[in-house]
């Protein structure tokens, strides 16, 4: 009998054996698939966000200069612009005006930014989809915002940012700089922070050092640091990953441990009978290995495919409560999928291999015992 035919016979028997305990094995496969689903969802989601952050934030300011007062971010005087322009290699220095607006009627926080180029007309705003949803407003509607003096000012919605841009614009309110100064009471001659463009990118670190020396009350933040922030947020040690990963891995360890230590009496007796009717130890172990392969491959395929649908078709619906926290406004974004063979391989070795090992070791222990003594148990 050829090797292939021999293993086909063993697989036939393994499937019949699984079928005899189908309820237990079905429950096992579902739990296993759920763990794979959780791990795969986290891997797909974080990798997609990291890649999107790298692609989208390439256009972020090269250097942001913030002023700190008593350890807190403070308004920066416009006079610092001239000081920074004197640094060799600095091309352009601009003031940025932005802030946060808490809307008491909805409980949502919005990010208000001064209009870019081309600027918006006075009294008008452009809003993100999240703002539009929470306030239930559309283009042409009026939005009343409470100013520093307690009086409400109405702004006309000139534009709503597209759904496609929601990952960066969901909570944005863009308004003319003059209106923003009035709303937040920011006096002329001050900005929230400053942005710099440097002629030669290789000089960014040198320029940042010079800024620290020239303006000791300020701190420069480089674009490279902004980009690395998102790699760090979704690093495996970060809270988000650690919480979900640790939960799933702990569940998997308990699951595999249970499997490894609790070969049922029925299974032991089955192995004894097989050996008594002439099966060799290697064939019994091969049969148990195939059982492990059948269950783990089914769970791996099922869990991974459902995770892909979950993250890239339903906008990671199950992660929403985790990411939302106490926020009222939550962006609804569609991530661009990216499947790295390395990710799939890592997932495979993290889930399938330990399970097969956990199945084979107790079977090997049971299969090497005298069949007569097993059957007498």
């Amino acid at each position, binding site marked *: 009998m050829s090797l292939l035919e021999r293993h086909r*016979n063993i697989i036939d028997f393994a*499937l019949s054996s699984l079928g005899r305990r189908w309820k237990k094995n079905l429950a096992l496969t579902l739990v296993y698939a759920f763990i794979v689903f959780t791990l795969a969802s986290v891997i797909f989601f974080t990798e997609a*966000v990291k890649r*999107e*952050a790298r*692609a*989208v*934030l*390439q*256009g*972020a*300011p090269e250097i942001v200069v*913030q002023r700190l007062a008593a*350890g*807190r*971010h403070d308004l920066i005087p416009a006079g610092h612009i001239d000081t920074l322009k004197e640094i060799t290699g600095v091309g352009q220095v*601009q003031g940025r005006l932005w802030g946060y607006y808490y809307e008491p009627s909805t409980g*949502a*926080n919005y*990010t208000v*930014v001064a209009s*870019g180029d081309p600027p918006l007309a006075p009294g008008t705003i452009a809003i993100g989809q*999240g703002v539009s949803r929470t306030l239930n407003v559309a283009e042409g509607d009026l939005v009343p915002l409470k100013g520093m003096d307690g009086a409400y000012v109405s702004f006309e919605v000139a534009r709503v940012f*597209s759904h*496609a841009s*929601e*990952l*960066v614009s969901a*909570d*944005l309110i*863009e308004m003319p700089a003059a209106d923003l100064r009035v709303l937040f009471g920011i006096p002329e001659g001050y900005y929230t*922070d400053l942005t710099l463009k440097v002629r030669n990118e290789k000089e960014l670190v040198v320029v940042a050092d010079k800024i620290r020396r020239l303006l000791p009350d300020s701190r420069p*933040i480089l674009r490279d*640091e902004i980009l*690395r*922030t998102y790699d*760090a*947020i979704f*690093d495996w040690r*970060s*809270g988000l990953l650690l*919480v979900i990963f640790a939960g799933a891995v702990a569940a998997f360890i308990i699951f595999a441990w249970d499997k490894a230590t609790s070969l049922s009496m029925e299974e032991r007796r089955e192995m004894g009978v097989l050996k008594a009717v002439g099966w060799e130890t290697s064939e019994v172990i091969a049969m148990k290995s195939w059982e492990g392969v059948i269950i783990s*491959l089914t769970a791996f*395929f099922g869990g*991974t*495919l459902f995770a*892909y649908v979950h993250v*890239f078709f339903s906008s990671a619906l199950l992660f929403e409560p*985790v*990411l939302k*926290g*106490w*926020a*009222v*406004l939550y*962006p609804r974004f569609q991530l*661009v*999928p990216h*499947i790295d063979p390395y990710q*799939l391989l890592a997932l495979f070795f993290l889930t399938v291999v330990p399970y097969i090992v956990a199945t084979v070791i107790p079977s090997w222990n049971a299969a090497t015992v005298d069949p007569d003594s097993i059957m007498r148990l």
Partner: protein
Amino acid sequence: MPGRKSDIFFIVVALGAAAFGLMIAHAHHRNENAGHGLKEKAMLVERLGLTDLCLFTDARYARHPSMADLHTAFQDSPMSVEHFPSGTLILPPPHLRPR
């Protein structure tokens, strides 16, 4: 019609592998066509000088993690501990951590 149980197993494995192939092809296709959406976001980032993705909107240091300072954890009082769920999910940016 498959006659043996092992045939069903091989068919299921082949279908799973084919579904994986489709998944990779779909990801590749979406990546190829993502240029417009990414460009739109990148243009908005450049035009308004944005620095962060809008992932969390409950705490300011989670909305703009790259702009957070060392005192954000104590924003309400010196003894105030972290109380926003999103703040417990993310690490401080690398440039705020000791080197």
